[in-house]
């Protein structure tokens, strides 16, 4: 949890000014390809990161999506519910 927060901060440093969404509460059954698949409906996903904990083999329920443009990001943000594998995910912030 803590380590990923740090990694997240590092990811953020480089993502300032880029259209990035931070997704939380991702179900354990979904990994980056599922996330990418879901968000592809809003635009071109340039990067999708769902960090896994190598000590457990599970991810920590959060990930980052980088779109190609601000507009695509806005598309994604405008949708109220993002349901992946039947679970409602939260888009927490973007930068």
């Amino acid at each position: 949890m803590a380590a990923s927060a740090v990694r997240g901060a590092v990811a953020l440093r480089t993502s300032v000014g880029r259209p990035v969404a931070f997704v939380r509460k991702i179900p354990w059954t979904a990994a980056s390809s599922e996330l990418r698949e879901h968000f592809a409906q809003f635009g071109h996903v340039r990067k999708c990161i769902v960090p896994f904990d190598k000590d457990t083999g599970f991810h920590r329920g959060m990930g980052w999506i980088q779109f190609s443009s601000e507009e695509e990001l806005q598309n994604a943000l405008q949708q109220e519910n993002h349901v992946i594998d039947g679970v409602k995910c939260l888009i927490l912030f973007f930068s």
Partner: protein
Amino acid sequence: MAALLRPARWLLRAGAVPGLPLPLRLLAGGPGRPRVALCLPAACPGPAAGGLLSQARLYAIAAEKKNYLQEEPTSSHRRNASQFDWALMRLDNSVRRTGRIPKTLLQKVFDNTCHSGSPGGNQALLLLRSCGSLLPELKLSERTEFAHRIWDKLQKLGTVYDVSHYNALLKVYLQNEYKFSPTDFLAKMEEANIQPNRVTYQRLIAAYCNVGDIEGASKILGFMKTKDLPVTEAVFSALVTGHARAGDMENAENILTVMKEAGIEPGPDTYLALLNAYAEKGDIDHVKQTLEKVEKSDLYLMDRDLFQIIFSFSKAGYPQYVSEILEKITYERRYIPDAMNLILLLVTEKLEDTALQILLACPISREDGLNDFGSFFLRHCVTMDTPVEKLKHYCKKLKDAQMHTSALQFTLQCALLANKPDLAKALMNALKEEGFPVRTHYFWPLLVGYQKEKNVQGVIEILKGMHEMGVNPDQETYVNYVFPCFDSVKSVRAVLQENGCLPESNVFSQAELKSEAVNGNLDYILSFLESNTLPFSFTSLRGSLILGFRRSMNINLWSKITELLYKDGRYCQEPLGPTEAVGYFLYNLIDSMSDSEVQAKEEHLRQYFHQLKEMNVKIPENIYRGIRNLLDNYHVPELIKDVNILVEREKIDSRKTMQLTISDLESTLEKLKAENQPVGDVLKQLILMLCSEENMQKALELKAKYESDMAVGGYAALINLCCRHDNAEDALNLKQEFDRLDSSAVLDTNKYVGLVKVLGKHGKLQDAINILKEMKEKDVLIKDATVLSFFHILNGAALRGETETVQQLHEAIVTLGLAKPSTTISSPLVTLYLEKDDLPTALEVAIDCHKKYKILPRIHDVLCKLIEKGETDLIQKAMDFVSQEQGEMTMLYDLFFAFLQTGNYKEAKKIIETPGIRARPTRLQWFCDRCISSNQVETLEKLVELTQKLFECDRDQLYYNLLKIYKINGDWQRADAVWNKMQEENIIPRGKTLRLLAEILRNSNQEVPFDVPELWDEDEKHSLDSSPLPEESNLQKDLLNACQWKKNKDAYNIFLKAQNRNVVFNGETYNSLIKLLLTKDNFTQAMQVKDFAETHIKGFTLNDAASSLLIITQVRRDYLKEALTTLKTALDLEQIPSRIAVTRLIQACALKGDLESIQAIQKMVNGLEDSIGLSNMVFINNIALAQIKNNNIDVAIENIENMLTSGNQTMEPQYFGLAYLFRKVIEEQLEPAVEKISIMAERLANQFAVYKPVTDLFLQLVDSGKVDDARALLQRCGAIAEQTPIFLVFCIRSSRRRGKVPTAFSEDGTGSAQ
């Protein structure tokens, strides 16, 4: 039976007798009493059989204890109390939410309690009480074991047990149906010298009754009788159970009648005991009858009680009756925790079917279909190894009932977490059958399980399983989860091939490559790339390569690989072309490294770039610019010039013109030199140009060639150039040459800093420290940026792990006073160990800093790391220290921020909700600033969210910070949401908040939904108040600048301005200002500053220099008394006043004839003469002068003669200079004295052959124009003419004096030939 009850009845009848304990009288009061009255404090043993317990009661008691403890004033108890609060809070929360305590939580609280030193009695009680029915997930025997473990461990740690602990243990035994001997238990208590009380007896009775031992129970009852102890409902309830378990239902039922006869109306507990007894017999009819009877009475059974009847039925093997009881459940508010507790208990008892039945009966809202219920049940089923077929069935049931949307997925997750491969595989197949995809990463937790035990066979099995299920392992699977299980990657390929699970695609090769890269095995990568025939694009390799480069420091391999990629067509077929591909690669490489990493690897990167240059690798200019910006941001501008050499230069014109100019200058220089003309200017220009060209080699050659023509400026530029090029050797040599040229010349601050940096980096610590000393001696202006540079020097060394450098330079900087100890400047001391992951030492160093400087550098980072690593011991230690040194509140804030930072929001929430915690604006602002500067939006949002209820919290300020971060990110939607939230919270925003919000909205072309307040002065003032720091430091900087440039008026005005704004600077600043004002003779102003400083800074004192200047000024103004006081103060502070100051004061006293003061000064400076540089002659001359002034000429002369003629001379005659005395006497026209002195001098010469006085007199006569007197003296005493050395000194001095040299030196009365 009757015999048994007789004593009780007797006892109870006696209840009417006055003087009996209050509870007894209450009991005797008759029927119809509310239940509460029967519940004696801490005495309710609850239902006799080990079953569910009223949790609320347990914690109510614990809470009472807590309050009692809090009232104790001693602080040593405070920590224990807070530890207790924490533990109570954790456990209580868990019970309130889920009706239970997970084992891990109890273990954690237990461990924490142990680490807290000697756990208090209340903590022990809390832990023990948690080991019963609150642990439904544990088997009964395990719970008791846990209780025993806690009991023994705490006892070892010194916890003193009282009767409450024994009673608590008994309760746990009852709840866990633990078989034990009550007599042994009593014996144990006796051994420990603990008196059993009524509760003890009651519980022992219950223990006998639980096994149906009525005889045993009556023995205890008899004993209670002899002790006159009251018999309560609890005892009767126990007896009901006792008779029932002994098979005597009739007598069990009879107990109720006996109770009534005894005047105790059976309450719910008694009926519950009876109901349980019937349920255990499977007697549904009697259960129903009894329930009806209860319903008719005014008694009321709670859901919790009914749940217990269900449990009794199920456990006794009568699940068929469960549904009948379930119908009676009303599902009152807060029933869920109790239901959960029962369900889990049933699973633990392997009664899963009943558990499911109860679960499905729970009236859960199923509308939105997104809130799953029942996960706890599935998880526990997995833990208890419920057969997979049953589990699949349960999942289907839950799904059908719309209680859980993803029951199978969840169960699979539990199976994976519990590392049960067979169950997991079966569940995956079930999922597949349902049409849900089975994904690669589902297998990772299983692989992790085998990887931890290095079980190769297990891993192979999983890979085979994946294959069977049609899932292909990807690169990540191999690299992260398969390879680590093997000793080497090479062996993996062989083993997989052997087992037939080597995939045909190149996924495996890529995985191998990545894995070797991660291990920094660049040899492998190079040979792979050389021999590889598969198509690989540069981009697909980039990630692995960067990882590999960062993990290997073999620069030769870095270069070789880069060259291969640059030159080999296989890898650079992209449209980019090699220049750009490699350029991007370099950019990405540096970008992927943190600033500290780049700083630490600076040298390696430099080598790398130079090798690439030699290999003729080029990068485009635009990418170079990107890299340059990165390096600038990382604080390693020194590397820029090394990247610059790689730039592909199409237009070399600009360089050409430059070279032309250089050669022009060179030839001009040659010409001038040949013509023997001054070359200084041209030489300097050329050197500066070479420096800007970064051509160090040539610049140094030039310097060597024209060494004799070099001036200070050229040296300064060269020194700086060498520092930039990391050439410590030459930089140091140049600095020495520079000093030889002009030892008083001062470099500018940046160049000094550059020297310190380069010398420190090359281990020339002593030289670096010498530079620091010089900075201090030459009073180099220390700006904020300088302090920051010091920090970067120390930090760089810390990141490189250079312990000595960091420690010694830090020590020098701080002790010299170049920078005050601060959390910033001292943080590298801690960084050293944080980088090495040596957390214990890091903490140790931080604590040490606090001891030395009262600061705690990087405590936040230390804590974060400790939390990440779960180092509870060290966290405890850190917290104890902070609590003790800075208070509990600071500790809580530290912990709060650390939890926030590490994303442990729940824990953070608990901390900030600690009762009694209040807002600390500066701490909160500090964390806000931190979040903003590192753009941690989520963390900041959490901070704002969690502090909503914080006492005295400035909500507006926090939201203002939130807006700031949203502004940076251009997020107007969230900013707008803040506006709404503030209304919701009823916050009145300040003007600045509204203005900021308006600005964000306007920037995004949004309408501003409110009136934007104008900028009022008031607001301005407020913002000043809230952030006085920048203001203060700006003014202080200005003031110091003005001092540096000797602008006394400006400096004084800044002081006045600051005074008006109530800004207080540090003591040194005031000292500088006072010094400046004194040298400019602004005495009054100086005194004003001094007064202000003394009244505003506690313990402010003038420093040595300022004190000396003050003395001089006071003497000049004839404030001798004050000057004497100043001197005394300075000496008391162990300062060393300047020689001039002391001498001036002595002289002034002498001219006043103030002999006493001179002698007082002599006493004061006794022993310091050498440090001040004060000659004894100063006293001899001036004492004599004072005596002469007082008309004691004879005494003065006698003293001097004695000194020169007595056997124990204090001073060699040739150094016995009396010139000052002679001159003053002549100047002041003290004729009789002149005459007598003249006689003395001649006598000394003629009779004692001491010629120094007479020669001095002769010279002074000459000097004051009394040539005739001088000639007469010379005639009388011809030996004067032979005193050549004295003449020589005199001539030199006079010539100097004529040459406008300050007169102080020759005036000081030490006119001796030194």
